[in-house]
């Protein structure tokens, strides 16, 4: 591939850095895992870059590759997971009780998401990215009607999981 293509690729990677990082945060279980996944996604993006013809939006194409890579890599899951939170979750910085409670609940929610299945994580990620159900369908290939049903079930599951964490069950 030419140097121009490499520069163009670098620019697009940097512009859409957040997509890759978010996928890594959701699917990587620890920092080393996240780094491996980041590397794998960039390699897969580069391999497919020559065949990108702009039929889909660049971000849609990128979500597909990032999620396909994260889901189908199917790394062995260890039972004990050292969960590392993304940097937007403050680490013991809250001053007031109210802030502390909010922080704790945020961690609970994030921990609950990490217990979802690979497919559920993908749906949650696109939901958090504020994608419409039609866009989700374009990326995941699941019909928008089914996605709506699944999303409701996921929300319910997350409620149960966060409650279970709160009451220690």
């Amino acid at each position, binding site marked *: 591939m030419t140097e121009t293509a490499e520069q163009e690729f*670098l620019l697009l990677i940097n512009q859409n850095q957040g997509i890759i990082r978010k996928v890594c945060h959701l699917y990587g279980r620890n920092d080393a895992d996240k780094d491996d996944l980041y590397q794998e996604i960039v390699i897969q993006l580069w391999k497919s870059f020559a065949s990108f013809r702009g039929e889909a939006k660049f971000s849609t194409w990128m979500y597909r590759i990032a999620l396909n*890579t994260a889901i*189908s890599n199917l790394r062995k899951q260890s039972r004990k997971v050292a969960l590392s939170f993304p940097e937007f979750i403050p680490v013991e910085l809250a001053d007031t009780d109210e802030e502390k409670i909010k922080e704790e609940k945020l961690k609970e*929610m994030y921990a609950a998401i990490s217990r979802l299945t690979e497919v559920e994580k993908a749906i949650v990620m696109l939901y*958090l990215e504020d994608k419409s159900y039609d866009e989700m369908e374009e990326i995941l290939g699941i019909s928008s009607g089914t996605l709506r049903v699944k999303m409701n079930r996921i929300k319910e599951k997350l409620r149960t999981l966060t409650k279970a964490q709160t009451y220690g069950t």
Partner: protein
Amino acid sequence: MELDQLKEMWGDVGSKEKGPSADELQTLLQKKSKSPIAKMKRNLFFELLFMVILYVFTIFYYFLNYTGGMLISAWMLIVIGVLYFFYYLQKRKLLNRMECVSCEVKSNLNMQLRVLEKYVKFYMWSGTLLFPIVFIITGMIVFLYSPDTNANPVTKEPLFIWVFLAVMIVFAAVLTIPIYFLNKWYVRKLYGQHIERLKTIVNEMNED
């Protein structure tokens, strides 16, 4: 906390992390992919390399050290080598068809599962069927060209040869049964877990 509250903060995830520089990207792209399919492709290539080295060495050994009837072994190895090459091409073709990372996630995973199951079936059956073929051919060559056979007029009788062949076929058939189960166990050990997890994901994606 509700998911929608997390949504408000989600936009900031990864925003503080820098993207790679041109040099970092170069280094990153030179690394080998760790995806299961890339690993399978690398393993297949090493298998080919091993077979080429082994076959070339053995074939040359036969051609340089033997003459006459024993050379048939070298020719048999060439035939098996050519068959192996077609086997390699078929496996390579299946591996190349196994993924489409830029396709919709559901169709990619469906395809991956379908092709992987085909790949495993091909791997298992080719390994199982190769055994009786090699067993019978090797047995017949050893029998027909051994000095003992040539020294004894009874063993050179056509009827004796046919009986020997029939015995070899029966033995091959009996031994193929444990080979089939051994292959099945080995293939399952290699790919079983991966297939099961893919099936779980695909089923989850397909259910309404």
